[in-house]
């Protein structure tokens, strides 16, 4: 369970990204965070795995106060939280399986890390992760040969390979075409359902959020202005989240 209690976040340049955020997310929920660019969506995600520090308030995950974690403890905690990025963040010159195997690296001893020695079990598990997202046949292909959707699936497989309890996805479909975006969203739904992994994703396309996610959180200027099941949100509430401007949908064609 992820719990935000009166969380404030102020960046070193003085910009306050989060103001008094209170949230509770149960294990296995599928949550979409919507809002304008700069409203604080990314900050919420990045606070959860401590890529950013919380300035005030408390943030606990499964009863552990994230802000107290240091060094090795923090790294061990991050193993449980997978993160997916808009730009995939793969080593494009390595094969898909090598990228997936990097998820095992933090648990290996120094010499295995240095020489890149992976056991047969690790390799098979990596292949299974690739199979879970349906690109087993691309396992030995270099990532720069894959399409955007396939690369995002490799990134998803890499995250699955670290056996996370939570997956944070920062604009995972923003650089994909509409059809691929839908396929990747379906992958998320399936993983959420089959493995009971909590998924939090930032998303620009309101229609995708409403179609695939269970719960929607609307962020506006660092404050949570909507929090409820995706089926109950009304047009006025969406308009309020987006500050009166038109909410972006897939049809806009980014």
């Amino acid at each position, binding site marked *: 369970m992820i719990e935000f209690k009166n969380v404030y976040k102020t960046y070193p340049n003085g910009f306050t990204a989060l103001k008094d955020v209170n949230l509770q997310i149960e294990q296995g929920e599928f949550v979409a965070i919507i809002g304008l660019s700069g409203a604080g969506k990314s900050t919420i995600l990045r606070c959860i*795995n401590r890529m950013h520090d919380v300035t005030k308030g408390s943030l606990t995950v499964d009863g552990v106060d994230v802000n107290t974690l240091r060094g090795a403890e*923090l790294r061990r905690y*991050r193993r449980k939280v*997978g993160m997916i990025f808009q730009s995939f963040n793969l080593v494009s010159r390595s094969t898909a399986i090598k990228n997936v195997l990097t998820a095992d*690296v933090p648990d290996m001893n120094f010499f295995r*890390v240095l020489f890149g020695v992976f056991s047969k079990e690790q390799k098979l598990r990596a292949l299974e992760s690739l199979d879970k997202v349906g690109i087993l046949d691309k396992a030995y292909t270099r990532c720069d*040969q894959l399409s955007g959707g396939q690369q995002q699936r490799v990134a998803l497989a890499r995250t699955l390979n670290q056996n996370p309890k939570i997956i944070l996805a920062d604009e995972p479909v923003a650089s994909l075409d509409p059809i691929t975006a839908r396929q990747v969203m379906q992958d998320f739904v399936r993983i959420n359902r089959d493995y009971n992994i909590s998924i939090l994703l930032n998303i620009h396309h309101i229609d995708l959020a409403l179609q695939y996610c269970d719960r929607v959180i609307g962020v506006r200027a660092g404050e949570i202005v909507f929090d409820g099941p995706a089926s109950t949100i009304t047009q006025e509430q969406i308009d309020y989240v987006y500050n009166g401007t038109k909410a972006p949908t897939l049809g806009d064609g980014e």
Partner: protein
Amino acid sequence: MAEKLEKLEQSLDRKLTVAEMYANRPRKWLLYTLIVLILVVLVTWSGSSIHFEGLTVTGREVARGVISGVTHPDLKLMFGTGETDVPYLLLQTMAIAVLGTLFGAILAIPFAFLASTNIMPKPVAYLFRVVILMIRTIPSLVWALMWIRVTGPGAACGVITQSVCSIGMISKMYITAIEDLDTHILESLDAMGCTAFQKIRYGVIPQLTASFISATIYRFDINLKDATTLGIVGAGGIGASLVQCLNSRRWAMVGSFVWGLMVLVLIIEFISTRVRRKLAHGE
């Protein structure tokens, strides 16, 4: 240019007329005229001290000799297996280039990291850039002449020369690769719980190896051509024999050396281009 016009429109607070647009047309020809003018001046200045004094007495004979040599190479020399024959000398030239490039590529790694502005503080980086520039400016033949004084003539001297010369260019290419590093990957490794060492091993090194290998192969290409000239000053390889034959006017032998050189260089150039394309774009 377009900005200048926009500014002008703003200051006048109206659209420009056709005549005004014409008056403010971009004058690229000015640049070109200037270039041509500079060129003319430079050429007349430099032409003044370079005199054509006609062919030397033996010039005609040399020219005829070279042509006859190339058309009638010494086949025995060309396909022989002795230590003075073309195949052996070509192999030795290649050996110099292989070792020179390998050592140069290894030596260039510390230089490149020390001279990268995104890793090192600026003053240190610029200091090492000057050092790299110095290595690059001194022609390889001068390096060879200096090393011969230290190590004595022979192929080993050629290897040392090339190791040093290669540092300049290879590290310059490495620096480009290092400064183009994609740091997003480090972010995701960080989110995965990797230590600094693990981030370097799995985030930085896989990105660099392909570029580094590509730079090394490119330099091997150049070193091979360079190694052929090193022999002229006595640093091993095919060059020494070629120059000896030229000076003693044994044209058929010159012909076989030239043919051997051309074939070797063309083959290596072809292979290196293909391998580098494969490294850059995958299979």
